[in-house]
């Protein structure tokens, strides 16, 4: 499918004299994580961190549990700067029920989400125990200002 790529920072609106009146465009990246037995499953989203005069901010993380992970003990989704990292989200139970979930963000995670320090945003599901079913789609919403 043809794609149109814009510069990392996209704003729209009618700027007033004091520079206000512009809003950032919200961008999204998503990936579907399917169980792989007892192995942790991860997906890496690359955001435009480090681009001159820009700042990347995660607005929200949406976790759609389409098929629950039937792991024997637990199945936990985390989002961080490396696989199973918890810098942005932690402790999301994807074993309990099929539903749309949002992480309960800690103060430290909210602060980290305001100003990223890495181009990698990695979502990981870590199972504990035998697992034979599980499909989860993770969507990261962010803005580049």
């Amino acid at each position, binding site marked *: 499918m043809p794609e149109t790529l814009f510069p990392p920072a996209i704003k729209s609106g009618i700027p007033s004299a004091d520079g206000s009146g512009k809003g950032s465009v919200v961008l999204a990246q998503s990936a579907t994580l399917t169980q792989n037995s007892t192995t942790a*499953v991860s997906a890496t989203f690359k955001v435009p961190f480090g681009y001159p005069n820009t700042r990347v901010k995660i607005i929200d993380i949406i976790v759609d549990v389409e098929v629950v992970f039937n792991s024997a003990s637990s199945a936990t989704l985390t989002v961080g700067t490396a*696989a*199973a990292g*918890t810098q942005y989200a932690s*402790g999301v139970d994807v074993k309990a029920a099929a539903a749309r979930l949002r992480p309960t963000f800690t103060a430290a995670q909210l602060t980290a989400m305001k100003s990223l320090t890495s181009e990698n945003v990695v979502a*990981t599901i870590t199972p*504990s125990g035998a697992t034979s079913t599980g499909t989860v789609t993770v969507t990261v919403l962010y803005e580049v200002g």
Partner: protein
Amino acid sequence: MKIAEVLPSGKTVLRDATPEEEKNIKAVIAAAKPVKRVFEE
């Protein structure tokens, strides 16, 4: 320890976890363990 990495194409590949990732995975599993309650008579 291995990690199943989902690529942008949707394909999944197995790769070796880095030491940091191994540490993260162990911490996540430990945090998810149910709390053991000890009852005293």
